[in-house]
């Protein structure tokens, strides 16, 4: 089997030194690598402070790109208002970056956003892998606290929290892996430990590149069923894509 039509569960749009990616260039790269659809979230200042600008950027990127929107929890009620606006505009989930946005995942400040995501039935992707605030196991604790919400370990604990990923996903049933930065051996370990149902292909563009991210999975010689799940079906179901 060749690649199924691929859904990319994690790209970033905007600018964050030294990276930059606009929707037009992303679509060009998607076409070059057989990507049907991408889930995009803001980066840089638009991730941390100018949330509305970043959210509009991903929400208005066209029909092949869906918005994983963000709001800095420290904005309080304004953060909730922004998420409500985004829900009306078609957002498919919430992205949070504890290190950049300045909170610990278990802090009360983020609870209203998580409650909103639960009510909206949104999956929540956390950046993981940066020590202290973006601890894989802190996200696992949050996932235990909100068992009805699906939580995605964005960037797969890259770099040096990779070793926590297989056990966390095994132990917490509403925790998912996004593969953009995870080494193939780590992805293989999750697949072996827990199966393919909670693994999402992500490219990490523009930090990573499609060709490299796809090859990482191809090198694992996955069977067709696993490929379909990881490259497409899991994301289609989780983000409720048509």
């Amino acid at each position, binding site marked *: 089997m060749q690649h199924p039509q691929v859904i990319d569960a994690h790209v970033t749009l905007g600018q964050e030194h030294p*990276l930059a990616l606009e929707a037009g260039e992303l679509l060009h790269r998607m076409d070059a690598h057989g990507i049907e659809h991408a889930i995009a979230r803001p980066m840089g200042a638009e991730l941390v402070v100018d949330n509305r600008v970043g959210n509009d950027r991903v929400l208005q990127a066209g029909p092949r790109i869906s918005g994983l929107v963000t709001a800095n929890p420290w904005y309080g009620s304004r953060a909730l208002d922004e998420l409500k606006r985004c829900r009306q505009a078609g957002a498919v989930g919430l992205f949070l970056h504890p290190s950049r946005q300045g909170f610990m995942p278990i802090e009360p400040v983020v609870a209203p956003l998580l409650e909103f995501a639960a009510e909206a039935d949104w999956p929540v992707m956390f950046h993981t892998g940066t020590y202290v605030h973006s601890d894989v196991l802190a996200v696992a604790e949050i996932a235990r606290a909100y068992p009805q919400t699906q939580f995605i370990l964005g960037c797969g604990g890259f*770099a040096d929290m990779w070793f926590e990923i297989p056990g966390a996903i095994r132990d917490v049933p509403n925790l998912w892996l996004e593969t953009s*930065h995870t080494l193939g051996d780590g992805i293989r370990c999750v697949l072996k430990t827990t199966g393919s149902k909670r693994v999402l292909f992500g490219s990490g563009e523009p930090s990573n590149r499609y060709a490299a991210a796809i090859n990482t999975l191809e090198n694992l010689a996955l069977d067709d069923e696993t490929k379909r799940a990881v490259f497409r079906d899991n994301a289609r179901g989780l983000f409720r894509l048509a």
Partner: protein
Amino acid sequence: MRIIDFHTHLDDRWFNQPMPSETEFLETLDRFEIEAACIFTLQGFYGNCRKHNDALAARARRHPDRLIPFATVDPKLGDAAVVELERCLADPLFRGVKFHPWLQAFAPSMVQSTMIELLQCAARRHAPVIFHDGTPPYSTTFQIAAAARWVPQATVVLGHSGLSDYVVAAGQLVKDIPNLYACVCGPRAGYLPYLVQTAGIEKIVFGSDFGFTDWTILAEFLDNIRVADIDRPMMECILYNNAARLLRLGERPLPTAHLQ
């Protein structure tokens, strides 16, 4: 294109997990057309460096044209570490030094006087010193860069170019510190143009961490270079020329004969 892998591990096991055997290791180098690899211990980071240095040398002696051993010592042992490094580097087979402060449980500043002696020893032997970097609390990229400043005549290599969260810092530090280099074993392809432009093309070498896992990690990190927006002459510098220069292969080519 000629390739030297500047960052690999060749050992029996990591804890209870077997690592690629010597034969598998060499077959993988062949598969990816890697001419030679700098090989480091893994279990030796947890103790008994002498034993592991000797094991690494024995492997390299069987394949001196392909395997370039880097010694490791435990700087927490003070003078004994310096003695062990002198012993290893007296053997022309050893061409470099590897530290993994995270696994070896020291911050360079905690063992500063010994680390300075070790770096001076390496500098006298023209042996590059590669450190794991990118991981707090003992191996931040800033900590390794600080150590490079202590001994300007030593060649210090960031083993992972900042890995993930320190990549931007790694580019700037390598630019600012003349004796600091970066091994692109970690940062994803999107960051390579930044590293090249900021640090300078002559200061970046390729590494894969192969041995720590199977061949897939080598494939991934080669992909990283090949899909990055850099041209072929730059790739040649990263994949071979810069490593050959740091290892002084022009003056001291790798032996072709079996040394055992």
